[in-house]
C-alpha cells in the first residue's frame, strides 16, 4: 500500500521536476537573443490585451482585428521599412477578468521584444495591469477603458485614445438638453465601471442643464429581461432613456422599451455605437436612438474611408465593432512611438531600457491624425481629442446627427 | 423518583398514532425490555426518548427533567445513550475512532487547543484514547482497535455500537434489537454483556425480539401493540398474559413461550 502511494508521489515529483528543467533550460538557451539585430529587420512585438474567449468577446475580437490591421498597415509603410523594424503581435486573452488580465500583463512583460500593449477593454483589467506595465517600462494605450482612475495613478506609461466618462457623459447631456430638447430622462446603467461612470456623468450634467432625472436603475451587463424595468420607466413618462453600457444588453433594453410602449429614443455612449446594436434591437426599434462617440465620424475623416475599405478587404465576414477603429489608432500610436524611438536610439535598442523610455516619451508626444480624429495626450495620458459626435439610427444605420 | 417517566406520551404522524398514550417508568439499575410485534411503536418510543422525535403530547422525563424538544446530543449529555436497529456505525472510521467519537460529550478541547496542541489537549486526547480502549476491552474488541468498523463481523459491529454508546458514560442505555441476526452463542454472550453493563451501574432499556434474551435478563417487560401499552410486568407474568399471547404472538403460540 505505502509502496504504491510512494510511487504516485514520485511520479508527481518527476513531472514537476521535468517541467522545471524544461522551463529553466529553455529560458537559459534563448534569452538575450531578441535584442541583437544586425542588418536584418528588428522584430518588435505589440501585445494585444482583450477578452477573446470570455467576457465581452465581440468587442475584444474587434480590438484584435483593429490592432492587427494597423500592424499590417504599418509593416507595409515606408517609415517602418526605413527604420528596419517589423512589427508582430501577440494576443493575450484577458477574459475581461482582472486576475487573468494581470496574468496576461505579466506574460507580456516577460516578452523581451514586447514594448507596447494595445489594451485592455475593461477598466477593471486595465487598472491593475497598468501597474505591471509600468514596472516593465511597457507603454500601454487603451482603446476602450474609460474609468478615470486609470490615468490618475501617476503612471507615465499609461495612455488612452478613448475619452473618459467625464468628457463623453456631459457632452451627451449637453446635446440631449440642447439640440434634442430633452427635459426628463430615465437613466439606466449596466453595473460595469464603464456604464456606471458614463451614466453618473450624464446624470450630473443633465441636472446641471436644467433637465430632470426621473429615475436611476442598475442592471447587469448579461441581463436579458428588462420588462419590469420598462414598465417602471413607462410609469415615469420620460422623453429620453439614457443607457450607460454596451450594445449587447443595450439593444435588448431598446427593443423591450419599444415593445413595452415607451416610444421615446434611447441614448448611450460609444458602447452602443455599433452596427450590431441595430441588428439585435431590430431596425424598427433602434430607429431614432442616439449614441455619442469620440472623434468625428469615420466618413468625415480622410483616413476613415480608407479604414473601412481595408477592413472590408481583410475581414469580409465581420462588421466594424465599437472599438475596432480605436484599437487601430491605439496600435498605430504605439508603433509610431517605436519608430520615433528607433530614430533616437537605433532600431536594435528599442527593447533596451532607454529604448523603452524613449518609446513612452514618443507616445506621450504623439500628435497625429488617426482614424478617429486628431490624437494627442495630456499630462495624464488622456486623449486631448474631446470631439464628441452624436449619432442617430436612421434607416437602419448609424449616421451623424444633424439638427 | 424513577429514572425515566413517561406519562400519557403520544407520537402522532399525520393520522397515525405510532405511540398512543403510553405511560411507563424505569427505575435506576433495572433492565427493562420493550417488546411487541413489528410496527408496535417501540423504535418510535426510543426516538422520542433520544430526541429524534418530539412527542406530540404527554410528558417524557429523564431524571426528573423533560426530554421533550431537546436535541439528540443534549439528551446524550443528560445521560442517555443508544444503539440502532440497523447498525449505524461510522463505517469508515476505525473501531477505536468510533468509540472516541462517543467521548465527544466527555471532552471539550476546541479547535484552538487542537491547532496549538496545548498540554490540556494532549492530556485530553490521551485520556480519550484510554477511555475508548477501556470500552473496547469491555465489549471484547480491544484487539480490533485499528480495524475499520465496516470490516468487522456482524456480531462485533453490534458490540462496537454498544461500546460507542457506553463511551458517552450514560446512566441509561437503550438497545434496539441488539440480538438481531445473532446465533445462539452470540446471543448468550450478549446476554452476559448486558448483565455486566447493569453491574457497572447503567440502567438498560431493551427492544428485543429474541424472547430467550428478554426472558433471561429483563427485570420487567412492557408490551406495545399498535402504539398502545397492552401489558406490563415481570417476565413470568408476561409469559402468561393472555392479551400478550394473543396480540403479540397470535393464538396457539403458548407452546413457544412455554419453551422459553
Amino acid at each position: 500500500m505505502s509502496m504504491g502511494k510512494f510511487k504516485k508521489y514520485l511520479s508527481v515529483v518527476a513531472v514537476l521536476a521535468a517541467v522545471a528543467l524544461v522551463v529553466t533550460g529553455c529560458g537559459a538557451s534563448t534569452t538575450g537573443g531578441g535584442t541583437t539585430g544586425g542588418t536584418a529587420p528588428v522584430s518588435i512585438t505589440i501585445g494585444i490585451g482583450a477578452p477573446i474567449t470570455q467576457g465581452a468577446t465581440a468587442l475584444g475580437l474587434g480590438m484584435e482585428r483593429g490592432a492587427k490591421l494597423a500592424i499590417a498597415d504599418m509593416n507595409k509603410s515606408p517609415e517602418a521599412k526605413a527604420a528596419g523594424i517589423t512589427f508582430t503581435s501577440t494576443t493575450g486573452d484577458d477574459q475581461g477578468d482582472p486576475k487573468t488580465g494581470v496574468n496576461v500583463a505579466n506574460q507580456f512583460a516577460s516578452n523581451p521584444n514586447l514594448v507596447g500593449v494595445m489594451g485592455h477593454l475593461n477598466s477593471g483589467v486595465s487598472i491593475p495591469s497598468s501597474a505591471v506595465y509600468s514596472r516593465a517600462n511597457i507603454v500601454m494605450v487603451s482603446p476602450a477603458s474609460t474609468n478615470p482612475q486609470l490615468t490618475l495613478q501617476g503612471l507615465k506609461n499609461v495612455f488612452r485614445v478613448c475619452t473618459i466618462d467625464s468628457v463623453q457623459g456631459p457632452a451627451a447631456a449637453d446635446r440631449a438638453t440642447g439640440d434634442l430638447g430633452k427635459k426628463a430622462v430615465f437613466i439606466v446603467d449596466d453595473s460595469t465601471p464603464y456604464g456606471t461612470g458614463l451614466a453618473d456623468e450624464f446624470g450630473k450634467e443633465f441636472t446641471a442643464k436644467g433637465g430632470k432625472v426621473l429615475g436611476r436603475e442598475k442592471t447587469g451587463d448579461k441581463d436579458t429581461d428588462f420588462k419590469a424595468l420598462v414598465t417602471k420607466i413607462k410609469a415615469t413618462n420620460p422623453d429620453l432613456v439614457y443607457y450607460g453600457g454596451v450594445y449587447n444588453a443595450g439593444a435588448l433594453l431598446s427593443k423591450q422599451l419599444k415593445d413595452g410602449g415607451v416610444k421615446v429614443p434611447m441614448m448611450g455612449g460609444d458602447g452602443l455605437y455599433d452596427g450590431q446594436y441595430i441588428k439585435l434591437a431590430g431596425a424598427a426599434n433602434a430607429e431614432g436612438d442616439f449614441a455619442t462617440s469620440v472623434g468625428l465620424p469615420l466618413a468625415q475623416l480622410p483616413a476613415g474611408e480608407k479604414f473601412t475599405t481595408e477592413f472590408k478587404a481583410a475581414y469580409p465576414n465581420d462588421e466594424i465593432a465599437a472599438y475596432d477603429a480605436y484599437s487601430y489608432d491605439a496600435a498605430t500610436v504605439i508603433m509610431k512611438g517605436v519608430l520615433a524611438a528607433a530614430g533616437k536610439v537605433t532600431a536594435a535598442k528599442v527593447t533596451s531600457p532607454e529604448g523603452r523610455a524613449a518609446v513612452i516619451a514618443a507616445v506621450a508626444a504623439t500628435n497625429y491624425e488617426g482614424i478617429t480624429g486628431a490624437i494627442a495626450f495630456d499630462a495624464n495620458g488622456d486623449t486631448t481629442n474631446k470631439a464628441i459626435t452624436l449619432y442617430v439610427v436612421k434607416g437602419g444605420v448609424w449616421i451623424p446627427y444633424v439638427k | 423518583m424513577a429514572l425515566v417517566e413517561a406519562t400519557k406520551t403520544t407520537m402522532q404522524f399525520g393520522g397515525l398514532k405510532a405511540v398512543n398514550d403510553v405511560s411507563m417508568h424505569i427505575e435506576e439499575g433495572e433492565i427493562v425490555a420493550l417488546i411487541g410485534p413489528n410496527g408496535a411503536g417501540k423504535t418510535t418510543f426510543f426516538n422520542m426518548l433520544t430526541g429524534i422525535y418530539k412527542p406530540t403530547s404527554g410528558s417524557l422525563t429523564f431524571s426528573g427533567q423533560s426530554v421533550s424538544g431537546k436535541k439528540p446530543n443534549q439528551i446524550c449529555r443528560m445521560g442517555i445513550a443508544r444503539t440502532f436497529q440497523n447498525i449505524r456505525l461510522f463505517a469508515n472510521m476505525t473501531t477505536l475512532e468510533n468509540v472516541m467519537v462517543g467521548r465527544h460529550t466527555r471532552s471539550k478541547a476546541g479547535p484552538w487547543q487542537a491547532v496549538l496542541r496545548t498540554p490540556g489537549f494532549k492530556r485530553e486526547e490521551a485520556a480519550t484514547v484510554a477511555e475508548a480502549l477501556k470500552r473496547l476491552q469491555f465489549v471484547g474488541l480491544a484487539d480490533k482497535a485499528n480495524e475499520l468498523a465496516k470490516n468487522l463481523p456482524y456480531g462485533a459491529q453490534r458490540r462496537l455500537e454498544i461500546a460507542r454508546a457506553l463511551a458517552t458514560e450514560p446512566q441509561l442505555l437503550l438497545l434496539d434489537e441488539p440480538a438481531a441476526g445473532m446465533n445462539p452463542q452470540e446471543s448468550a454472550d450478549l446476554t452476559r454483556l448486558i448483565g455486566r453493563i447493569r453491574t457497572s451501574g447503567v440502567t438498560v432499556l431493551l427492544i428485543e425480539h429474541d424472547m430467550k434474551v428478554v426472558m433471561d435478563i429483563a427485570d420487567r417487560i412492557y408490551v406495545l401493540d399498535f402504539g398502545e401499552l397492552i401489558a406490563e410486568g415481570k417476565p413470568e407474568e408476561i409469559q402468561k398474559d393472555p392479551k400478550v399471547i394473543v396480540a403479540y404472538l397470535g393464538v396457539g403460540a403458548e407452546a413457544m413461550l412455554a419453551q422459553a
Partner: protein
Amino acid sequence: MGGSKMDIRTNVQSGSWSRGKIALAVLLGVLVVFAPVLLQGFQTMSFFVRVLGIIGIYVLLALGLNIVVGYAGLLDLGYVAFYAMGAYAAVILGEKFVAVVQTISNVGLRDFLVSSQFLVMLPVAAIIAALTGLALGTPVLRLRGDYLAIVTLGFGEIIRILATNDFLGLTKGAYGMMAPIAQPLGLAQLQLLPIAIPAIGFNFIFSVNLYWYYIVVLLIILAVFVVRRLDNSRLGRAWVAMREDEVAASSVGVNIMTSKLWAFALGALWGGLAGVVFANAQGFVSPESFTFMESVFIVTMVVLGGMGSIPGVIVGAALIAGIPEMIRGVAQSPLLAGVIDPTLASAISGYRYLVFGLLMVIMMAVRPQGMIPSTRRAQELHPEDEKVLEEEDQSLWDLKHGADRSEHDL
C-alpha cells in the same frame, strides 16, 4: 491495553514518515522555494511567477473550502463570498488603517506601519470572514445538502451584488477600489540584492510577484498545518462522524449545528485570508473578480483533487488554476515564436476552455474520487459500497421529517 499509542489510527494517517516520503517532501520544498527564483531570473519565464502566485491563492481557497466540503460534507456554492469579504476588508479597512497611521510624526515608524498594513489586515479579514461564515451558517445550516448549496450560491451572489451596488457607500460599486499601497513591507530591501549571471541570461530581481508568491506559500503552509491538526482532533472526528451518519453522530453527543458552524467559520477564514493577499497582489478590487463561476471553480478543485485530501486539494487547485494559464503560456510563449505559427498558437489557447471542460468530464469518469483521494474518503466512496452509502446517507433532517427518499451525503 491494546496497541501502543503510536500505531493507533494508522488507517487515517501514518504516524511515521518513510524515507521516500521525506525525500519527496524535501524535494518539493526545494522546488517550491527555489523554482520561482529561477523562473524570475529568466525574463521569458518570469510571468510564471505571477501564475504561481495566483495558483497559490486558489490552493489557499481550496484548502479552506475543503474544510467545509471535504471534512464536514457540506456543499458550499458561494465560497467566493468569503474571498470577497477578505478582499474588500483588506482594501476598505487597509485604507482606514493607512489614513490613521499617516498621522504619526515619526517617519520611520510611520513608513513601517504603512508598508505592513496588509499584515494587520490578514487577521482582521480572517475574523471578518469567519464571522460572516457564522452569520450565514446560523440560519441556513439546518437545511439539507442541496438546499444548502443553493442558499450558499444565493449568498455569494448577494455579496457580489451588494458590492456592485456600492452598498452603504463602502465599495465604490462597479468602479472598484485600489489597494491602499503598492510597496509591501520589506520588498524594497529585498530588491537591493539582484543576482545576475549574464552568461546564461539570468537576471534576478526580487519582484512584487515573487513577494506575494512567498506570502501565499507561507499561508498555505499555515493552512496545511492547521487543517491537519484540526482533522486529527475532537472536532475533526466529529466532522467525519457527522459526514458518515448524522443521526448516529448526534445520538452519541455530537452537536451537529456547532460542528457545522465551526466548519463554516474555519473554512471561511481561509477565504478571507486569500482575499487579503489577492487584493494586495492585484492592487485593485472590483466585483467582477467574485462571480459565481469562481465558486464553481473552487468546488471543482476540491472534488477533482480529492475531497478531504490535503495533497489532493493542492494538486487539484494547482492544475485547474494552472492548466489554462500554462496552455496559454506555452502556446504564446516567445520561445515558441518560431516553432508554432502565431495563428495556431492563439487558436490553441482559444480552445483551452473547451478542452478543460472535456477533461473535467473524462476525469470524473475515470477517477470520480479525485486525483489523490484521502485514505478515508477513498474507502468511503468505493463504488462497491453503494449499498452502505445509501443506508448511511439518511440525515437527521430526513428522519425527523420522514422524507421518503434517502438523502445522499456529498
